[in-house]
């Protein structure tokens, strides 16, 4: 099966190179709000509730300073990803105990014709499991730099 191309799921409107949030909850709120501000979702409260419920099942931090909060919601019409970087790091309850710097929030509608949700999650995990790639994501300041990383 062909690997999904991550680049098409990101948008400059949902790219936050310097998160203001100082806690996990505030970061989730900030990322959900950027989807709302971009006009990609209408009801941010529903999405935030779903994302927080998912976190209750187990932290979405995947170690090495990365978290991928994710879930399906009726508020999303398409698969979409927001990116946020926290320089100071946030306590995400990661198994390795390290603070989270890179956050990728993945939202998907309940029904997708091409079922890309899990392959995209898997591809993100795969890309970010490479320590060199991870490091590069912490250096980006513009969306163009960010998308260049995804192309490579």
């Amino acid at each position, binding site marked *: 099966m062909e690997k999904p191309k991550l680049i098409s799921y990101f948008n400059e409107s949902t790219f936050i190179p310097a998160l203001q949030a100082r806690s996990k909850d505030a970061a989730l709120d900030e990322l959900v709000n950027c989807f709302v501000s971009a006009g990609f979702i209408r009801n941010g409260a529903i999405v935030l509730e779903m994302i927080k419920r998912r976190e209750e*099942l*187990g932290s979405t*931090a995947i170690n090495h300073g990365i978290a991928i909060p*994710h879930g399906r919601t009726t508020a999303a019409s398409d698969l979409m990803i927001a990116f946020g970087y926290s320089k100071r790091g946030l306590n995400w309850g990661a*198994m390795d105990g390290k603070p989270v710097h890179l956050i990728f929030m993945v939202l998907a509608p309940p*029904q997708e014709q091409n079922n890309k*949700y899990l392959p995209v999650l*898997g591809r993100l995990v795969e890309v970010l499991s490479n320590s060199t790639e991870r490091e590069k994501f912490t250096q980006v300041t513009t969306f163009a730099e960010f998308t260049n990383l995804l192309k490579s």
Partner: protein
Amino acid sequence: MAEKIKTQIEFLVALQDLDIMIKEIAEVKELGFEVSAEGAATLTRARAELVQTIKKQLLSNYERLRSRYKRAIVPVKEDTCLGCFMRVPTSITAQGRTDVEVLSCENCGRILYWLS
């Protein structure tokens, strides 16, 4: 009557959402995400409670379809079944909107619901 059917359909959609979540939670766990045993048990408990609210015949139809398709109950959008993407006859659509009975797609057999 219509209200009862509508409620049953809503319960069935909720059950399907829960079933998909239970399945996907297991799959994301394989990708390396943490899922607590307690969290997974909570979902299973919620499913058991939800099942009690659905009529046996409807539930058994749902379970039979679920063994065949990822989604047993699908919405109709623009007169199209979003399971097999075949056009649903106008007569069925007109009937479906009244919520008088549970209807299935004539092509794939999936249970249909109409987005209000």
